[in-house]
């Protein structure tokens, strides 16, 4: 017992396993918080409205539910729950295509839980860092030869060290699952674990029969197996290489290179630690994409059948067994010799300082009068801002036209300006989008990058700066990292103040400029929308002129009577009954 205690102590303290584990847990939590985004952003943004409809139709497809949704959709998406209806109707169309195993479900939580966008690098790194020193440490300090001559030095030495390292790998893998479960449950909720896996859109094409809970259990088991395989391979490599550098190099290469280098289908047909540690590939159905050249459909991923999954698992188990046998051979046989001691050196801390761009305080805009009806042109100090052939231009008092001095490179890099613009005081705001595709053969998102920027031009100096930007990049090192921030700027009318962007109309939202966080905003644009620098005025769905105070966030009616339209002028609001 004391020997085992000593081994644990060696792993956690001497080899700094405790530090590695703590860093790993912190990295996992950070990864969840920083890289997670909802699979269905609209369902998350308009959650309340969406759940209102979902309550009625939750569960399997029935004729009554279908009739209800068709009726609601036919009645028109006008009302307080309009956005929710759009979301549920999209889901209805999805469910309709596979009525027997696609259920109505708030699937964002399960989608986030079951999806893996990339190899879990903190997990792989932690397993390697915990496993490499187990035998390399003994070899480097020369204790190995001494231990092997002692009574407990052979079988027990091997047994305890190997078992401990494998247990550590298992614990790391399971804690990943627990962290992800807790995170998804807290952020989205994980309802109805007994619904079929196909209810989540990412797995809609799968032919396997699994419940959501079953899919998660299978994924956790496969990830555990992959972690054990990586740990066993690392142990084996470290026992034979005896050098830290070589063992770490070879095990990292074994973990990372197949993932970056091999095609998806090859990866999931081989018992590789990297593929088992990304188990979503074993659950997904076949996927097809359009060929950009011929327009035909090509399979980009073929479903891994249950039998193949079993074969891969068996292969991984065999690899683990082979590694253990090799370890036994290594320590049952000759006594190795390398000698040498290490000097303790103080750890050097590298502080990485990120330089943050200085923030310039924007002067408060005074006397704002904005009417969405007039947003095609804006006058300021004798200048008129409008757009000509898709490019914003300025007309001076004599009618001379000058292009707004935005990025002059648009003709070659293909950046496009999206109308309409928004103006407030001396600032004019423009949306610009830029996309680039480096992939050629498929018409899907691989190799695509999409950048949406909000530019602000100061009409006094014509200085231009980017106020807000979202970048959606799909591929890094040839690996599909999937999505990113959804486009938050939209294409309809919008209003900008110092803190927020208000995107109006259907799918409206309020986006915080500093964080990019979006909250739903319901302002219909079928009539005029006005902004006076503090409040947004609009005609709500029942025809009442309403005021939304952007500072207090409260909405109230300006008057009780219904209006057909209105305008904001310098002297006040002019309504048209």
């Amino acid at each position: 017992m004391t020997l085992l205690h000593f081994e644990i102590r060696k792993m956690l303290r001497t080899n700094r396993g405790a530090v590695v584990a703590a860093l790993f847990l912190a990295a996992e939590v950070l990864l969840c918080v920083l890289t997670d985004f909802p699979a269905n952003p609209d369902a998350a943004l308009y959650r309340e409205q969406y759940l209102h409809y979902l309550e009625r139709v939750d569960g399997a497809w029935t004729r009554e539910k279908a009739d209800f949704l068709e009726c609601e959709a036919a009645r028109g998406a006008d009302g307080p729950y309009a956005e929710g209806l759009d979301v549920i109707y999209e889901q209805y169309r999805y469910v309709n295509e596979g009525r027997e195993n696609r259920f109505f479900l708030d699937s964002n939580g399960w989608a986030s839980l079951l999806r893996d966008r990339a190899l879990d690098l903190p997990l792989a790194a932690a397993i390697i860092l915990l496993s490499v020193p187990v035998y390399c440490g003994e070899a480097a300090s020369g204790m190995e030869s001494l231990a092997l001559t002692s009574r407990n030095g052979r079988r027990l030495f091997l047994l305890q060290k190997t078992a401990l390292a494998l247990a550590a790998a298992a614990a790391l893998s399971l804690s990943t699952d627990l962290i992800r479960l807790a995170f998804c449950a807290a952020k989205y909720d994980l309802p109805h674990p007994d619904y079929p896996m196909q209810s989540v859109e990412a797995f809609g094409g799968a032919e396997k029969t699994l419940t959501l809970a079953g899919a998660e259990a299978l994924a956790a088991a496969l990830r555990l197996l992959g972690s054990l395989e990586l740990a066993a391979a690392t142990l084996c490599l470290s026992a034979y290489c005896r050098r830290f550098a070589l063992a770490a190099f070879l095990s990292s290469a074994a973990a990372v290179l197949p993932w970056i280098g091999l095609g998806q289908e090859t990866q999931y047909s081989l018992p590789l630690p990297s593929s088992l540690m990304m188990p979503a590939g074993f659950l997904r159905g076949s996927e097809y994409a359009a060929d950009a050249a011929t327009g035909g459909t090509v399979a980009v991923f073929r479903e891994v059948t249950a039998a193949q999954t079993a074969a891969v698992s068996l292969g991984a188990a065999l690899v683990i067994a082979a590694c253990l046998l090799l370890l036994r051979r290594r320590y049952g046989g000759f006594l190795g010799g390398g000698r040498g001691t290490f000097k303790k050196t103080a750890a050097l801390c590298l502080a990485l300082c990120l330089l943050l761009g200085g923030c310039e305080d924007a002067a408060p805009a005074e006397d704002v009068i904005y009417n969405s009806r007039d947003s095609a042109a804006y006058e300021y100090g004798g200048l008129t801002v409008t757009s000509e052939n898709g490019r914003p231009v300025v007309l001076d008092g004599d009618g001379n036209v000058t292009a707004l001095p935005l990025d002059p490179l648009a003709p070659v890099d293909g950046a496009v300006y999206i109308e309409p613009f928004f103006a407030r005081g001396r600032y004019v705001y423009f949306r610009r989008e830029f996309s680039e595709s480096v992939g050629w053969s498929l018409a899907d998102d691989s190799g695509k990058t999409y950048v949406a920027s909000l530019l602000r031009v100061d009409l006094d100096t014509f200085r231009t700066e980017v106020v807000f930007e979202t970048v959606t990049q799909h591929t890094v090192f040839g690996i599909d990292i999937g999505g990113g921030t959804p486009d938050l700027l939209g294409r309809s009318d919008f209003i900008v103040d110092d803190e927020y962007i208000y995107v109006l109309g259907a799918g409206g939202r309020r986006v915080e400029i500093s964080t990019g966080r979006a909250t739903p905003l319901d302002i219909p644009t079928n009539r005029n929308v006005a902004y006076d620098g503090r409040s947004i005025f609009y005609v709500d769905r029942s025809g009442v002129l309403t005021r939304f105070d952007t500072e207090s966030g409260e909405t109230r009616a300006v008057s009780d009577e219904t209006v057909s339209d209105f305008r904001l002028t310098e002297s006040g609001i002019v309504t048209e009954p």
Partner: protein
Amino acid sequence: MRLFRFELRKLFLRAPVFIALAVFTVLDLAKIRAVADDASLLRTDEVWARVYREQYGNYSGEMTLEKIDTLLDIYKPLEWITNDITATTRSDVEGTLTGNYYSDRNLLERYFVSPMRRFYNYRGNAEEVVRLARENEALYARLGCGYEARMNAAVARIYSGRAVAEFRYTEGYRLLFTYDFSAVLALLILLYALCQTFARDRECRMDELMLATPGGGSSSILAKLRAATVFTLAVPLWFSTVDYLGFGLVLDLSEANGLPVYAEGTMAAASVGMSLLGFYTVSALTRALGFWALGMVFLLISEAGRHALLPFAGGAAVFLICTAAGVRWGYSSEALFKAVNPYCVIINRLLFGRTEFINVLGAPVLTWQAAIVMSALLGLTAAALALFLGGKNNIRKGVLA
């Protein structure tokens, strides 16, 4: 000099390093083949490849109105009959190139019409950029915005006179420019070799012994730094050469060697104007510089390690953080973040491929110029720190002993 040669042999010219290099070179070539097969239809479709070879001779070389007219004479009727999907889908139609109307149209569109259109239009687009930039320059000069005026003047200078005069096959270069796998391979080898620079001496207690010799202390560290410099420059350059030869073997690169770099679609907004081959050389050298800077940081970490594991993990973590930052800011308008990140110097397509400036005391400096200077500074700082910290520690130890 003898110390340098000794360190080079001890640290880098070793069997495991050479075996790793050989294995990774084979992996690299296999991946290049897979990428080309995946992306180029001339690799997978034999009929297309044959027709392309036959037709290429008719259109390659200087673009004349005659060639464009000949091409459009074939293409326009095809476009007409395929647009309303009434053309026959038989695959043995007489008088077609590939035997099928749709296939003909797709081949011509993808490999002849659209690249030729892009090449032909480039001159006009560049002229438009120059016109807009000059307009902006005049406006800003009138308003007294010095930096903005200078920046637009620089844009006008860079884009004036740009034109693509010849039609050449550029698909190979496109794939070469967007191919990043070899950077990961080079990184792994560098991590492996560099993380033991100091750890190996410490393992066999040579570090203490060396302090007692005239060549020990800072002069041996200097020799290590020099050996590491040679190695960190050689490995990325080796892989860049392998990439070029690999893509040259599976797709024809030599055809487009002399074409200006902005002829390639993803490089249309490039801030440099050299030939494609010249640009690839510059890009490879810049990548080597980025690896050198990272390598010096790895060495600095290696000095702190009790054994080679911590430097390996630390180096990998530094690279991952740089990668994450590079992905986050690679396409962003915050040009400064690109200039300070070694990842952007290693994967430098976006650095050269976009015309972006950084305001350095009122002077517009192109991002790639700033990034090269920053990388050199980072590498030199890390090397100086390694020398300074290592030397000082050893002297103190020597006194105590």
